[in-house]
Structures are given as structure tokens and as C-alpha cells.
């Protein structure tokens, strides 16, 4: 096995997926994942995460574009790719009437170089559940069984579709630890999630998917940095936005007003906040519900959703953008 640090294990170019009814779930996306990296596809439900991952797993042929996993097409060169990948689907996939141990044994018989099933079951904390039927497992336990089987063959690349959905806080932490341990062992991990904190905590790099397109990509820090910080407050009675100093002078690059509630966006948080507060002090105005915060991944994520909503003309909010 070559352990080339910069080798691209997954390469996606101009990928498209169209369903039978004509719905275009993936609309020309491209990204690449290096060996030993955790890459997260982040997005709301319906953003195209699962549709994308299924193409990477080779479960369906793309309508356009190209996927390379370990240098091969995962759909047409299945036999070359499958022994080196591990997959966890978004849900289900095991006969409900088999026990955990029977399921693991069946799967082990189908995986090259399988580790002893007991070992991986212990790894995900299912050692005591081996004689329980799959249908009697909780949702979280089923997710962990699925994860165990995805790891059974010591794969080089692991695809995890929403690995922590349905897990409690502790189970989620355990899974995160496991995913980090995989990465530290040199495994490449591509996961999807709609939990921001999960992407922030785990991903070396991520892409935010929105309506089948990549809205932002980079390290969590890069994605965050591309987004403005914000200042929120409530204007007191009798005051209008026009009473403030001209917004561009404050270093504000966009604003929204909902009733009396004002939300300013800025890339110069300290300057904008200082000038705003100086104005308030001078005018003798109290800014209620004042909230000043620098950009976070959450802001970036919401910002992308907001931009999309603005595209479809939001009725209640007055949204203004101007060149920074």
C-alpha cells in the first residue's frame, strides 16, 4: 500500500445525478479528498448528500461527470474498489430476524481480510448484544452495528452516511472518537451530516451542499472566515435605522430588519461594534438584546441558507446587501 500523503483518494468532477422523474439531485459538483483525511458533506435534508455518497459508493451511475475512488470508477470497476472500501448506508440494511452475531458472521463471510466479528462489535460497544435480534436493537445500536460492519474489512476508505443520526450525546462522542482513531490510523473518511458541530469537530475539510450544489468548501476555519460576523440588537421606540451613522462607515456589509430587530453583518467586527456602541452612548440609546458574535460554521451554514432564501425573495425580512 502506498502511503502518499498527498494522494487524492476520492476525486469528483462535475458530478450530476438525475432521478427517474427528472429531478436533478446533484447538479455538477467537484471536490477531492486526500488520503487520511476526514471530509464532511454538510447540508440540510434534501441538499443532495445521500445522492452524492451513493455515487461515490458505486451504487448508481452518475448522469454526468466523473467519480474516482482509489483511482477507479466505483460503478464500472466494482471488483477493484469494493475490497478496499467500507460503507455505512443512511439507514437499515440488515435482516431484522438475524441476531447481531449472525449478521456479523454473514457479513464477515463476504469481506476480504475480515477482522474477527467480536472484535469490531466490541469496538462499537455491542459486545453484550451479540445474541439480540436486529429488530430489537435501538436506533442507535443499529447505527453502531452498521458502523462495525463497515469497518470489518479494515477498509482504506470509509463512507459514512449520517453516522450519528439517532445516537444520544454519549454515543455520538464515542462515534467521533472512533472516526478520529480511523483517521489517525491512516483511513480516509467521507461522512455526511446535518449536524454542524459534528462537521466542525471532525472534519479536516468540508463542503456545504445546498440544492445539489457546493455552496462553500474548505477547512472549517476557511469556510467560517469567508462569512461575515454579525451584530444584532433591538432599536428602541422612536428610533429608525436611518438614525444610525451611515452603515458602510460602520464597516457593515449587509443588514436585515425584522420589526425593530436589526441584524448587521460585518467583516470588521471590532470597528463596527466600537462605532455602533459609541453612537449609542452618545445618543443615550439603549440597544436591547444586543448580541455581537464572530462568524462560526453555524453562521456560515445559516448564511448560505439565508442567501438561498433571499434568492427566492423572503417576504417578512427586509434584506440588503452592498459591496464591501
Amino acid at each position, binding site marked *: 500500500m502506498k502511503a502518499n500523503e498527498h494522494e487524492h483518494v476520492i476525486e469528483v468532477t462535475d458530478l450530476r445525478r438525475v432521478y427517474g422523474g427528472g429531478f436533478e439531485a446533484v447538479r455538477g459538483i467537484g471536490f477531492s479528498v486526500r488520503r487520511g483525511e476526514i471530509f464532511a458533506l454538510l447540508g440540510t435534508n434534501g441538499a443532495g448528500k445521500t445522492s452524492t455518497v451513493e455515487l461515490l459508493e*458505486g451504487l448508481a451511475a452518475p448522469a454526468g461527470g466523473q467519480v474516482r475512488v482509489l483511482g477507479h470508477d466505483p460503478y464500472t470497476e466494482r*471488483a477493484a474498489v469494493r475490497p478496499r472500501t467500507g460503507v455505512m448506508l443512511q439507514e437499515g440494511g440488515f435482516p431484522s430476524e438475524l441476531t447481531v452475531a449472525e449478521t456479523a458472521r454473514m*457479513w464477515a463471510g463476504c469481506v476480504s481480510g475480515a477482522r474477527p466479528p467480536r472484535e469490531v462489535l466490541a469496538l462499537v460497544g455491542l459486545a453484550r448484544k451479540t445474541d439480540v435480534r436486529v429488530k430489537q436493537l435501538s436506533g442507535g445500536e443499529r447505527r453502531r452495528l452498521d458502523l462495525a460492519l463497515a469497518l470489518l474489512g479494515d477498509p482504506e476508505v470509509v463512507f459514512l452516511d449520517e453516522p450519528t443520526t439517532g445516537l444520544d450525546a454519549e454515543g455520538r462522542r464515542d462515534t467521533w472518537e472512533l472516526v478520529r482513531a480511523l483517521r489517525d490510523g491512516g483511513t480516509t473518511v467521507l461522512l455526511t451530516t446535518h449536524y454542524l458541530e459534528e462537521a466542525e469537530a471532525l472534519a479536516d475539510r468540508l463542503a456545504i451542499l445546498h440544492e445539489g450544489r457546493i455552496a462553500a468548501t474548505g477547512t472549517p476555519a476557511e469556510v467560517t472566515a469567508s462569512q461575515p460576523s454579525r451584530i444584532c440588537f433591538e432599536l428602541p421606540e422612536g428610533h429608525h435605522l436611518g438614525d444610525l451613522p451611515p452603515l458602510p462607515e460602520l464597516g457593515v456589509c449587509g443588514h436585515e430588519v425584522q420589526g425593530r430587530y436589526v441584524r448587521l453583518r460585518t467583516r470588521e467586527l471590532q470597528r463596527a461594534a466600537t462605532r455602533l456602541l459609541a453612537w449609542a452612548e452618545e445618543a443615550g440609546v439603549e440597544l436591547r438584546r444586543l448580541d455581537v458574535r464572530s462568524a462560526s460554521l453555524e453562521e456560515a451554514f445559516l448564511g448560505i441558507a439565508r442567501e438561498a432564501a433571499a434568492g427566492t425573495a423572503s417576504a417578512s425580512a427586509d434584506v440588503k446587501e452592498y459591496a464591501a
Partner: protein
Amino acid sequence: MNQAVTTSRSRLTALARAEMTLLGRSKGTLVAALFVPLMLPFTVLSVVGEMDLEDAGLTVGTVVLPAAVGFSLLFAVYSALVGIFVTRREELVLKRLRTGEVRDAEILAGASLPAVTIGLVQSLVLTAGCAVLLDVSAPEAPHLVALGLLSGLVMCAALAAVTASFTRTVESAQVTSLPLLLVSMLGSGIAVPLEMLPDRLASVCELLPLSPVILLVRDGWTGGLSAYETLGAVVTALAWTGLALFGVRRWFRWEPRR
């Protein structure tokens, strides 16, 4: 640690073993597969007893024996497998298996193996039982009986997969499998020998999927087929088997409809 690369055989064994365990836990399927084919020959026996078989050169034994094989193929193999394929698909088991190293054909073969084995063993037991109880002598052309039985097993498994492709839920599997069950029982010489039907109808019924299977088993046993008739039956049996396998490639659904 086991570093072995999996082979077709190890994968099939693992899948078939799991499927066998599941079959043992699915009481409804098991009862239908094991006991229905054992009961139905008795109903045929009572009907056939009242027919005038001698003109057609048949005996009660040579009618009930192939009928028993037919029931086994229909209930232990075809009908059971339609339900099994649909259940595995709806549980996303087929989709999950396709993410791994197992080939598509192995997934289907592994799922079919227990039911096909039951069908084979049952057919052998039933023919042996009929031969002894109904006083039928040893088969004249065992190779034709074997060919009929084998093509019947493969064809029924493949037809079950095709039927499953057009079946949305486990419940509706009982309805979607009915047409082939009824048509085969009435028109393929299982419940009624084709010789007892009007000529024109019989010549159409000869083209049904299970007709050549039943014909090969029956006349392979009695040795009553001319070379020309044998060829016709073999070609029809292989054509249906090929067609069913093509249908699987063409239509089989690996995951539920969205």
C-alpha cells in the same frame, strides 16, 4: 486474524447460511414451502382417479408424480422466493450487500439457495414416495427427468426474482405470485394432464413456462417422448429459463422505490 480473500464460494456459503437461519424463523414461509407441496398431490390424486387416463396412455402414478414436482417448484421455490426477495429489498438488505464485495449474481443465488435446496429435496422425496405408493416403475430416461427438474428450479427462482421486481410490498407478494401459480397448475399439466384438454388449447399450454418441465419429468419417467417431442420440450424449457434470467437482469430492483 483471517486475511483470506473471499471467494464466490465463501460468500455464497455465508449468504445461504444466513438465509437458511431466516427461513427457519419465518414460520409462515416455512409451513407454506414444506407442507403445501406435500398436501396438494392428494387433491390431484382424488381428481385424477375419476379421469379416463388410459386413452392417453397414462396412469394415476405418472400423472401425480410430475404434479408433485410441479407443486414443489411452485410453492417451495417460486412462491417462497418472491416473498424473500421482496422482504430483503424492502429491508434494504440487498442494497447494503451491493455496497460490498458480493457480486449481484451471488446475492441472488445466496438468497435462493435454501429455497431451491428445499425444492430439490422435496421433489426427490415426493417422486420417491409416488414411485413407491403409486406403483410407478423406475424412470426410463433419468437424464430427461434431471434436466426437467434442474431447469425448473433455475426457472422458478429467476421468475420469482422477476415477480419480486413488480411487487411493491411483502403483503402484495401473495397477489403478484398468483397468476403464475394458477396458470401453471391449470395449464402446465400439473392439476390436469394436457392430454385431457382440447387439442388447440393444449398446444398453447405447451408453451407455458412450467409445461416443458412437467413434460420432461413425466415422459422422461415413462419414456413416452419421441426425439422430436423431447427436443421441443428441452428448447422450450431452456428458452423460458433464459428469458427469466434475462428478465432478472433487465428488471430486478435492488432497492425500494422512492
